[in-house]
C-alpha cells in the first residue's frame, strides 16, 4: 500500500517531467528546425521568451523523480543506474550542454558563436529525451535485472522497443512544445507565429499519433505481457483516453482554440505514462521485481510520503503562481518591451 503510494507520487513526478520537461526539450527541437538565421529568428526569440522563466523549475522534476526513486526503491535505483549507465550518462551530459548553451544563447557576440551555441542547445534537446526514453523503454522491455550492472550495458537499451520509446519521447515533446508555444504566441499577440506553431502542432501531432499506433505493434511483438496490460483494464482505459485527448488536441488546433489545446495535449501525454504504469503493474522492473519487493521499509516510506506531502503543499501553490505570472507575461527581462 505504502509502496504503491510512493510509486504513485514518483509517477506524478515522471508525468510532470514528461509534460513540462518534454515541452522544454521539444522547444529545442523546433529551434533546431527553425531554418536559417534570418528566417528562424522570430521562432527562436519566442522560444527563448517562453522558456527562460520556467525551464529551471521544469527541470527540477527530474531531480525529484531521481530522489523519490532512490529513497523509496533503492535497490531498483541501483540496478537502473548501473545497467543503464550509458544512456543515462549521455542524457546527463546533454542536460549540462543544453542548460549551458541555453543560458548563453542570445548573448552571443558573433553570428558564428550564436550558431554554435544554438546548434548545441538544439541538438542536445533532441538527444536528452531520446536517451531518457530508451532508458524507460529498457525497463518496459524487461531488460533491467536487479544487481550492480547485472543487465547488458549496450543491448538493454538498443532493442527495438527502447529505441522506439526514445523516438516517441522526442516527438511527443515536440508536439507539446508546438501546442504550448502556439498558445504563448497568441497571448503575445504575434499572429504569424501562431500559425507557424499551429502547423507544427498539427504535423507533429499526426506523427506522434502514428508512432503511438505503430508502438502498440512493436510492444505486441517485443513485450507481450506489456501488450496485454495495455489492452485490458485500466491500461486500456488510459490508451483510449490518450487517443481521445490526442484527437481532441488536433481538433482544437484546427479550430484555433490554442489555450484549451494546452491541456488536452498534456492529458494525452500524461495518459501514456499512466497507461504504461498500469500495464506494467505490479512490476517495477519486469519481469521479476515488483513494486512491493523493491520498496524500502515502511518507516522510510512513511517519512518520505509525509515529507513529500508537506513539500507538495508548499510547492504546488508556488508553482501555480510562477506559471500564472509567466503565462500572463509578467515575468521578463526589462530589456524586452513590456507587453
Amino acid at each position, binding site marked *: 500500500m505504502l509502496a504503491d503510494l510512493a510509486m504513485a507520487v514518483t509517477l506524478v513526478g515522471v508525468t510532470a517531467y514528461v509534460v513540462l520537461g518534454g515541452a522544454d526539450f521539444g522547444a529545442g527541437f523546433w529551434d533546431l528546425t527553425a531554418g536559417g538565421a534570418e528566417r528562424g529568428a522570430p521562432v527562436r526569440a519566442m522560444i527563448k521568451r517562453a522558456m527562460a522563466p520556467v525551464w529551471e523549475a521544469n527541470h*527540477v522534476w527530474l531531480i525529484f523523480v531521481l530522489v523519490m526513486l532512490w529513497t523509496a526503491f*533503492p535497490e531498483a535505483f541501483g540496478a537502473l543506474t548501473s545497467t543503464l549507465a550509458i544512456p543515462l550518462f549521455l542524457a546527463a551530459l546533454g542536460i*549540462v550542454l543544453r542548460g549551458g548553451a541555453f543560458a548563453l544563447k542570445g548573448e552571443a557576440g558573433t553570428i558564428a558563436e550564436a550558431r554554435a551555441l544554438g546548434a548545441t542547445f538544439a541538438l542536445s534537446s533532441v538527444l536528452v529525451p531520446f536517451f531518457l526514453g530508451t532508458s524507460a523503454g529498457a525497463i518496459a522491455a524487461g531488460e533491467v535485472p536487479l544487481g550492480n550492472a547485472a543487465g547488458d550495458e549496450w543491448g538493454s537499451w538498443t532493442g527495438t522497443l527502447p529505441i522506439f520509446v526514445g523516438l516517441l519521447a522526442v516527438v511527443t515533446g515536440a508536439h507539446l512544445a508546438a501546442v504550448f508555444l502556439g498558445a504563448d504566441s497568441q497571448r503575445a499577440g504575434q499572429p504569424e507565429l501562431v500559425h507557424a506553431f499551429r502547423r507544427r502542432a498539427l504535423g507533429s501531432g499526426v506523427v506522434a499519433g502514428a508512432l503511438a499506433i505503430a508502438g502498440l505493434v512493436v510492444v505486441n511483438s517485443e513485450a507481450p505481457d506489456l501488450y496485454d496490460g495495455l489492452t485490458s483494464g485500466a491500461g486500456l482505459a488510459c490508451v483510449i483516453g490518450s487517443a481521445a485527448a490526442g484527437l481532441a488536441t488536433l481538433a482544437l488546433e484546427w479550430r484555433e482554440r490554442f489555450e484549451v489545446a494546452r491541456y488536452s495535449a498534456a492529458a494525452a501525454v500524461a495518459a501514456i505514462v499512466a497507461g504504461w504504469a498500469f500495464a506494467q503493474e505490479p512490476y517495477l522492473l519486469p519481469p521479476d521485481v515488483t513494486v512491493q519487493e523493491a520498496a524500502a521499509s515502511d518507516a522510510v516510506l512513511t517519512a518520505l510520503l509525509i515529507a513529500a506531502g508537506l513539500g507538495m503543499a508548499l510547492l504546488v501553490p508556488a508553482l501555480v503562481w510562477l506559471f500564472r505570472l509567466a503565462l500572463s507575461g509578467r515575468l521578463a527581462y526589462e530589456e524586452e518591451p513590456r507587453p
Partner: protein
Amino acid sequence: MQAMSFAVHIPLVCFGIAFPAMVVFLEGLWLRTGDPLYKALAKRWSKAMLILFAIGVVTGTILSFEMGLLWPEFMATFGDVFGLAFGIEGFSFFMEAIFIAIYVYGWDRLPPRVHIAVGFPVILAGFAGSFNVIAVNGWMNQPTGFSIRNGEVVDVEPITALFNSNLWHELTHMYLAGFMVAGFMVASVYGYAWLRGRRDRRHLTGLVVALSFAALVAPVQLLVGDWSARTVAERQPIKLAALEGLKETEKGAPFEVGGGIEIPKALSLLAFHDPDATVRGLDTVPEEDQPPTGIVKLSFRAMVAIGTGLAALGVWFVWMWWRRGRLPRTLWFHRALVAAGPLSVVALIAGWVTTEVGRQPWVVYEVMRTEDAVTGASGIPVGFAALGLVYVALAAIAYVMLRRLARKPFEVEA
C-alpha cells in the same frame, strides 16, 4: 568523477546559500532609503545570481545522476536510510528554482513589497537545501538510524539518521562558509575594480555590502571550526590523527606547526581543551583502515591557514569601518581582497577534501568501504574525461556571461 563534480558544484552552492541574502539586503536598503543606486545594484546582482543558479541546477542534476551511476551499491544499500534528507533537499531546490525565477524576472512587475517578500523563500530554501545535504554527510561520518542483521540493513529510522549528531557543527560550518565564499568572491571582483581605478559610489557600495557579510562571518567561523575539530577528535579519532599526521598514540600530544617545529602538548589542548589528553594515533587501526595522511593533513592545514587569514582581513575591515567609517585605503588591502575570493574557494574545497578523504577508506564510516560501493559498469574513465571537458566548457560559459553582464551599461533610475 563525483569528486570533480562536487568540486564544481560546491562553490555554486555557496552562492545559492548566501547571494540571495545579500541581494535581499540591498533591496531592503533601497526600500528603506529610496536610493535608486541600491536598487540598481540589487538588480544587477540578482542577474548574476540567476546565472550561477542555472549552472548550479545543471551541476546538481549531474550529481544526482552520478549518485546512482557511480555508487549503485551505496545507493541500493543505504538509499532509504538517508533518502529522506535528499527528498526534502529536492523540494528545497524546487522552491528555490521557482522563487528565484519570480524574483529575478519580477523586478518592476510586482509591487516592491511583494517582490522583496519573494526573496525570503529563496534564502530559506537555500538554508533547507544545505541542511539536508549536510545531514547526509554527517550521517556518512557517523551512521545512525539503522542496524545491520545478516548483511541486510534493517530497522531504518530515517528521522534519527537525518538528525545525526554531526549535523549541527557541519551545518554551521558549511553555512558560514557559504557566506564567506560568496562574500569574498564578490568583494574580490570589486577589489579588482578598485585597483583598476573604478572607485565610484556604485563600486564602493558593492564592495562594502559583500565584504560586510564575509567579514562578520569569518571570525565566527574560526570558533565553529574549533567546535568541528573537537567533535572529530571525539568521534573519529583516526580522522584527527590523519589531520595532524599523528602516527602513534600520545598523551599530551604536541602540535606540529610545520617544518619539524612542534609546540608541546598543543594538539591535546586544541583537540580536547586539555593539555594532557591522550590523542589516538594512526597505528591504533590496521593499515588498510587508515586514510591517506598526506593529502588530508595538507588540505586541513590549507583550510585553517586561509580561514585564519580571511578572518584577519575581515577584522581589519570591520575595525576600520567602525573607527573611521571608511575602507582601508592601502593598495595591499585591495590586493588582499582580490586574493581573498579565490582563496576562500580553495579553503572551501580543502575543507571538503579534509572531511571526505579523512573518512577513507570508508564511504559510510566504519560500515561500508568505498570500493564496495562503486559501480560495476565499465567505461568510467571515458565518462570522466567527457565530463571534465563539459565542466571546462561550463566554467567558460559562466565566465563569459558574467563578463557580459558586467559590461552592460549600469542604469540607475532617476
